[in-house]
């Protein structure tokens, strides 16, 4: 199974990386905010995951954590069907993570969206102004679990 092989290669290089789940064509690994850039560079240059697909945030309010997941596809022949999910956990009180724009150029707008939807601060990002929300939005970031939609 290829997912196991990829997981082995990542954990061999970075022993503290945790494997969350594996499927036939998917692999999710999680790491910390200070190591994610190194893991990202290895995933891109060592494993050939070069085609950013999307970036998602998750609010784990019970654990008091926020999670950022990068979904990275590949254009390397033979592994186009594989998607690597690279995630990091941060505390809800101080959600600061480094930007991965220097690894995958295309994450710029995805990170900007995650910033406004979850209030996660991407350090080193050139522009974190509101992209989708109105300019005068001064409430909680809407996709946090403690934000309740006004219609509900």
């Amino acid at each position, binding site marked *: 199974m290829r997912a196991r092989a990829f997981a082995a290669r990542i954990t061999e290089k970075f022993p503290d990386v945790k494997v969350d789940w594996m499927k036939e*064509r998917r692999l*999710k690994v999680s790491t910390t905010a200070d190591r994610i850039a190194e893991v990202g560079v290895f995933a891109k240059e060592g494993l050939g995951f070069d085609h950013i697909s999307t970036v998602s945030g*998750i609010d784990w309010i019970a654990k008091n954590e926020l999670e950022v997941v990068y979904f990275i596809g590949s*254009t390397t022949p033979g592994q186009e069907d594989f998607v690597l999910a690279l995630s990091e956990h941060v505390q809800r009180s101080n959600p600061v993570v480094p930007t991965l724009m220097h690894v995958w150029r295309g*994450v710029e707008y995805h990170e900007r969206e995650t910033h406004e939807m979850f209030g996660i601060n991407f350090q080193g990002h050139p522009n974190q102004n509101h992209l*989708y929300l109105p300019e005068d939005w001064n409430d909680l970031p809407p996709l946090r679990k403690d934000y309740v939609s006004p219609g509900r």
Partner: protein
Amino acid sequence: MTVQAEYSPDADRIMSVSLGPQHPGAGHFRIKLWLDGDYVVRSEPDAGYVHRGEEKMGEYRNYIQNVPHLERPVILDSSNILFPYALGVDELMNLKVPQRGQYLRVIMSEANRIISHMYFIAIQGLFLGHTTLITWCMGDRDFWIDFAERIGGARVTFAYIIPGGVRNDIPPGAIKKGLETCDWFDKRMDEYEKIFFQNPMVHQRSDGIGVLSRDDAIAFGATGTVARASGLAVDVRKDEPYSAYEDFEFKTPVMTQGDVYARSYVALLDMRESVKIIRQALKKLPQGPVRLKLGPQPRVPAGEVYSRTEAARGEMSYYIVSDGSPRPYRLKIGVPSAKNLGVLPHLLRNVHVADIPPIYWGLNYWPVESDR
């Protein structure tokens, strides 16, 4: 002011202009432009005029209630935005969709791809000053809508592909009608080639405009027609055959120029392949049920899934996190327009103002889809 100082020693030369949201060249979307005379020196897209909070709404509704509002972001292509959602929920609930249901999913998805590409080519014709093409395409698009309406029952919002299969069986007569439409459309596409794609005027206006190299396409994460026009052969239908796509013969059209012309032409080649797939699927449609019975409030086991399909504009993906309750804990819609958004400011640099509409629309960017 900082921007002006950054781009020119004499800051007065640079003028900032706002294109949209009320502008024929940019509907429900705004591009901030910094111009030096007739040249664009820098641009910044300003999306969000149609941001409706689909992802937050998804957390308030159960998996079946989510179907109708999830197809609204891109009603041109409404089956294709539901396809990965249905695949993801199927995978989480471990459902084995019957073969006839899989075939009908493919038929509807490909019909929607044609409907969406027809709209794309029509407006591209308009932006290149070719009024015949918009009249033809908008009219011919309605025949494909007729076919889809026979199956799905609505003009644009079908809610046809649902978790567990498709909503209803194909009605009698639709197969014959579909095959007739395929035959007629093949001839029609030859005429599009003659009047538009081989037209020297169109070549003059779109060749070499807004060129995106293959390396940039990879770096920016471009998908769909944009990536395939730049020589990057990404097609989820081929890379990761889902549903019944393994059963059909088709190619992934790729062009290498990476300009506005290639992006439009790839859409036409895409439609040719879609017609092939629809014809094969209609001819060998298996018998049997079309969907599995699900309760009105299905319980989805806890887990995470990342599902993706090839929509008309590119890779459409869903990230669904379930905590075992009837509602998704997190529903991330990864739409192709948002994936191609980063390409726009890269292309709008050192181009003429007159080339902005073809470049913008050539990305097949649909603001409603991008904003969600």
